[in-house]
């Protein structure tokens, strides 16, 4: 992004110079920490300041990363639930040994703060795109949990907004920076597997969310006071339904209004890794063919324009942990998952790196956060930038639509529409409840 020095009038310059003159008359004591002279100290001017929006259990992992860094500070939290606001504040204040963490019941106040450089968006899925767009319009850098969008249109709007405002965006697809996953992806990208044939992504297991969401409602319960839980705000862009505490307590997944289903839940991680392995961050598969009912096992066979196949499947893995991926080429294969363990074909065993020490899951998130922070400093694109995230999600949404309709679909990445299938095209978007919108 190119910045232009702001014009200063002669009156402004004179006023500032007079103030500087008055200050110059007094002795000036500058702590060495401000100048970064104490060993390991980072001057406050070099610290990136973050706020958090909708920080639940998942968001706390990101907050924990920020709290552990010297070049970042967590300054404020916004949440519609007062118990979450207070919990985050007490955690942050305890870490910094002060009471500086501000609490807001609305994101608007947090985003209006000029000192805040970036935000962590860890709300429920329904808010991810609208909130990211609002944050981009406020000029804030964004770390947003996945899935990043509820529809194909939201994915497009997200990428457009980030590009339009030039902010740094990192999707919470942290496995893109996990060492075992990076090893596997680089084997694919670097040609060690030969010509890529088939990429496999874990679409979840039978014990987690099935691919198709429900339109049901939970039983109606009396709405709590707004200062306890702002139910209207919690719903946000989703259409109104009666309150039930289960939604707010984290059990909103599986409902059409709030969740993209198992394919989005898992594919936003695993299909995302396949996208990068196939050097396909600027596109998505062109064919989608579902097999299997809304139970385990199920498969969605996809194909990219370059001939490489992508298979979403929920079974037949080597037991290397959740979010497993497998890349097959005509010269070998590699499979890995959240345990950090890697299996390869016999001919590639000499390529295997030594096992990483420490908790692979936590280290992966740390690497992802360092990538984001360094890119804020350098204005580079992080590994999970908005365009990559958008195209991964478009592919997952297309796979879900094919699965829901129970038929083969062809997708045109250039026109961003399904070829010859009006019913599928109608499912690319959904209306939002005002005042939330995608522009």
């Amino acid at each position, binding site marked *: 992004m190119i910045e232009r020095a702001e014009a200063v009038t002669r009156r402004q310059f004179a006023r500032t110079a007079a103030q500087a003159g008055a200050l110059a008359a007094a002795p000036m004591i500058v702590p060495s920490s401000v100048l970064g002279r104490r060993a390991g100290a980072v001057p406050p001017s070099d610290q990136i300041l973050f706020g958090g929006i909708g920080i639940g259990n998942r968001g706390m992992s990101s907050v924990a990363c920020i709290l552990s860094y010297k070049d970042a500070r967590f300054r404020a939290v916004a949440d519609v639930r007062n118990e979450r606001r207070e919990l985050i504040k007490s955690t942050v204040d305890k870490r910094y040994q002060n009471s500086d963490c501000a609490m807001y019941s609305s994101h608007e106040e947090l985003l209006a703060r000029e000192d805040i450089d970036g935000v962590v968006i860890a709300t429920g899925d329904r808010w991810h795109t609208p909130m990211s767009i609002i944050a981009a319009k406020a000029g804030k850098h964004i770390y947003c949990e996945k899935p990043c969008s509820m529809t194909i249109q939201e994915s497009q709007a997200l990428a457009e907004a980030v590009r339009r405002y030039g902010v740094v965006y990192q999707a919470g697809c942290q496995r893109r920076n996990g060492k075992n996953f990076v090893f596997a992806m680089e084997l694919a990208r670097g040609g060690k597997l030969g010509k890529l044939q088939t990429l496999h992504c874990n679409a979840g297991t039978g014990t987690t969310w099935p691919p198709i969401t*429900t339109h049901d409602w939970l*039983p109606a319960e009396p709405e709590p006071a707004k200062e306890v839980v702002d139910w209207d705000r919690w719903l946000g862009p989703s259409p109104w339904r009666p309150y039930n505490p289960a939604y707010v*307590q984290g059990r909103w997944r599986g409902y059409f209004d709030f969740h993209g289903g198992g394919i989005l839940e898992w594919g936003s991680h695993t299909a995302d890794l396949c996208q990068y392995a196939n050097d396909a961050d600027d596109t998505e598969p062109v064919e989608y063919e579902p097999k299997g009912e809304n139970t385990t096992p199920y498969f969605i066979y996809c194909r990219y324009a370059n001939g490489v196949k992508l298979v979403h499947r929920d079974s037949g893995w080597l037991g290397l942990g959740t979010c497993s991926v497998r890349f097959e080429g005509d010269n070998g294969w590699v499979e890995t998952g959240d345990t950090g363990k890697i299996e390869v074909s016999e001919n590639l065993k000499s390529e295997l790196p030594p096992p990483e020490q420490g908790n692979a899951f936590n280290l992966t998130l740390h690497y992802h956060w360092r990538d984001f922070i360094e890119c804020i400093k350098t204005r580079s694109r992080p590994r999970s930038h908005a365009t990559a995230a958008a195209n991964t999600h478009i592919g997952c949404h297309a796979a879900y639509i094919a699965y829901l309709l129970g038929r083969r679909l062809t997708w045109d990445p250039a026109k961003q529409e399904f070829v010859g299938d009006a*019913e599928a095209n109608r499912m690319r978007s959904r209306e939002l409840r005002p*005042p939330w*919108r995608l*522009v």
Partner: protein
Amino acid sequence: MTQATQETVPPAKKRGGGQRPTTPPIPPEFQAAGIMKLDSPELVQILKDPGATLFQRAKACMRLAQVGAQEAVPALAALLSDQRLADYARFGLAPIPDPSVDDALRGALKKVKGKLLAGVIDSIGQRKDAKAVDALAKLMYHADAEVAQAAVAAIGQISGPRSAEILLDGLKKTKGPLRAAAAAAGLVSAEGLMASGDRKQAFALYDVLSRMDIPRPVRLAAMHSTIAAETALGRPR
């Protein structure tokens, strides 16, 4: 990539993935499976049935988003003034590829108020109904801030020379949050003009949006877009 150290890696946290807590059972009156399999004529009947529940009509609207056609438009449009069902009605209307939807939404501009009006305007913007742009130009100055903001956003989405003209005029006449919204809408409008080949009008809009009295994020975006468009390899020469 920074080498992880004991000081920099957050402590291990217990993972809770893969298990679903128990939830209350879904009562029969809130089970949608049956409605989500119906075809358009049956769904329209539900919308018209005075004995149908809120839930049934809400889900009929959602199913009509998938299967509805021109014959469903009147029944859906009738719900645009219902406090609880208006958003569901828009959900059902928006994907129907028939011009009667645009007529119905434009017709609703004079019939509904407040949040419901903002919702109708949002759907007009989604469908990029250029016939509505002059009506939206008036709503841009509505006393209800939500309506006014929806109007500027929709004008930006519709884009085109008339949209640019309205937004430029609005930037002179508005202030505060509405002016900021008009500026943001101006970026969207400019992108639409650039995509349609109207570079001259797009640059004129970017030029105004680059001025010092425009909110900083929009100002920087406009300057960046100008430079990108002027230096693009595919630009007209």
